[in-house]
């Protein structure tokens, strides 16, 4: 190709620059297509990826050059929506060397200043390495950053891949510190929108007026101080996921606006009459009991129905006692590597304290305890003296156990009916065990299932509280 015939960009710098030179330096594979979806330009990266040279590909429909799994029957450019908004999808291509490569495709329309469609820019991302990296970072007992092997968590991990692959709205519930943010991110990363943006908005962090502008954006001059157009989070999250944390704290007027968006998928920035079609997956999370808030008239029922398409509940640590040891070891391994400390583990006494604690702050608190202990400990094993002082103070433990079941936070199903008149956690736990045994007719496997524990944990706790005789008596009473 002669140098004179190469396209140039003018007006950007004081002298024209070659478009090819600009695009060739990008690590992203890019093709420019005309309105008939024929190849106009291929940058160096896409030539390397597909094996086709620009000279031989020019004028040929993109489907024969890119040869992706979406080209033949699901070409996004056949959709008239692609003429106005950016489209994203995942698929695979087969290059000239017979390699099948998983890719993420992004199609953006190219228009004249008058709005006439002239063609498309197609970006092709090789996601082979992303998949490999994800496989490497995932843990045996977990999903993404989440760790657990209790029956409750296994249920969550089991449905997660299916939920991630769907495009439905997700509502995550769970007490503070249970890992709602991590779960939302894990859903996004496992979804087809993984390479798109993951935008997080804390619905309780800003006053109502600011929140509206933050979420939906504003037009220049919409209000005093709006000196320029500002895209909202919905626009920023286009082709990705929008994570609305603390959705229970969203003011009522904004609940209506969110509801309208979930219906029409169109965002109207403040002061603008022109809507923006936003392709966003909404993931919402809250530690509040939304059903109760609906009854109290503080949360719109119709919004709850729309958000509650897929619901994921993260159980508190006290309902997944089987995971405490796993979580302690997980954070110990993580922090020993991070802090470069050759600590071998927990002493038996420290472990007893840690296993008996109720963790009202859930996994976040457990992680902080592990981090504190590792920082303090200068020996081979973490002893009780290395643990935060409040852990060995029985009164605070009892208060924390009682506090976790108060307020409008999610009810603690496992300890329903307990709490009043019970002085400490041990007594509460004994009562939980006896209740479970009564309900299961003395069958320990079933009782362990009801408590969300493994059989071995139940056996250990029964032995610790001397309940082995009681179990037989309970069974006899129930029969």
């Amino acid at each position, binding site marked *: 190709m002669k140098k004179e015939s190469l396209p140039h960009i003018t007006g950007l710098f004081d002298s024209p620059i070659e478009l090819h030179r600009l695009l060739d330096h990008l690590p992203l594979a890019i093709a420019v297509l005309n309105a008939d*979806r024929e190849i106009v330009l291929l940058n160096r990266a896409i030539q390397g990826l597909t094996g086709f040279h620009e000279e*031989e590909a020019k*004028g*040929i429909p993109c489907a*024969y050059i890119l040869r992706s*799994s979406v080209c*033949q029957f699901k*070409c996004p450019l056949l959709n008239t929506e692609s003429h106005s908004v950016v489209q994203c999808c995942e698929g695979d291509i*087969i290059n000239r060397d*017979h390699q099948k490569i998983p890719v993420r495709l992004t199609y953006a329309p190219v228009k004249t200043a008058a709005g006439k469609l002239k063609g498309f820019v197609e970006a092709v991302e090789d996601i082979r390495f992303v998949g490999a990296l994800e496989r490497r970072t995932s843990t045996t007992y977990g999903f993404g950053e989440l760790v657990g092997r209790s029956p409750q968590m296994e249920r969550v991990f089991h449905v997660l891949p299916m939920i991630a692959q769907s495009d439905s709205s997700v509502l995550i519930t769970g007490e503070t510190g249970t890992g709602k943010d991590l779960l939302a991110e894990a859903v996004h990363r496992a979804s087809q929108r993984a390479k798109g943006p993951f935008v997080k908005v804390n619905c309780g962090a800003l006053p109502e007026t600011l929140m509206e502008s933050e979420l939906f954006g504003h037009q220049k001059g919409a209000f005093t101080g709006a000196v320029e157009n500002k895209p909202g989070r919905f626009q920023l999250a286009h082709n990705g996921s929008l994570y609305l944390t603390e959705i229970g704290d969203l003011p009522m007027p904004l609940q209506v606006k969110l509801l309208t968006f979930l219906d029409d998928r169109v965002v109207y920035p403040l002061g603008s009459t022109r809507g923006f079609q936003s392709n966003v997956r909404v993931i919402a999370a809250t530690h509040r009991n939304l059903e109760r808030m609906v009854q109290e008239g503080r949360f719109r029922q119709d919004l709850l129905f729309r958000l509650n398409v897929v619901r994921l509940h993260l159980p508190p640590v006290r309902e997944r006692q089987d995971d405490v040891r796993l979580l302690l070891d997980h954070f110990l391994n993580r922090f020993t590597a991070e802090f470069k400390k050759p600590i071998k583990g927990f002493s038996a006494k420290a472990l007893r304290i840690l296993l008996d604690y109720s963790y009202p702050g859930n996994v976040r608190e457990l992680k902080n305890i592990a981090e504190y202990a590792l920082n303090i400990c200068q020996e081979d094993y973490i002893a009780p003296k290395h643990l935060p002082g409040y852990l060995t103070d029985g009164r605070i433990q009892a208060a924390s156990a009682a506090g976790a079941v108060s307020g409008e936070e999610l009810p603690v199903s496992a300890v329903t009916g307990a709490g009043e008149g019970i002085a400490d956690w041990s007594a509460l736990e004994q009562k939980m065990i006896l209740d479970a045994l009564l309900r299961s007719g003395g069958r320990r496997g079933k009782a362990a299932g009801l408590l969300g524990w493994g059989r071995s944990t139940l056996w250990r706790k029964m032995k610790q509280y001397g309940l082995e005789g009681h179990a037989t008596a309970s069974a006899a009473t129930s029969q």
Partner: protein
Amino acid sequence: MPRKVLVTLYGNDVAPRFDLTIEVFIASVSPEGRIEEEKTVVLPQASAEKLCRMIITEDIQTVICGAIEEEYFEYLRWKRIEVLDSVIGSCRKALEKYIRKELVPRAIFWEKPQNVLS
């Protein structure tokens, strides 16, 4: 002895992908270069495995296709089937070139008037 040729189809053109092909053109070409027999077969579903099986059962000697994955490419070659892959152009033109012994893998003979996708 006539040679049996299979062309993966997408409309009137060689299909861009072997594994997504749902229609094939089969022709018997005599040593003199005459097409003695021809048929178009619509497959129940797109599947590279099933297409390979069909190629074997139909006694095909040459496959003309677009993109083909290494696994199937090597399998067909192992079965002593000639694979002319990464061909871009119309089925008719591909056959003409094949008969004239001009068709090679990676051949591109795209013609704008035939540019009708879906």
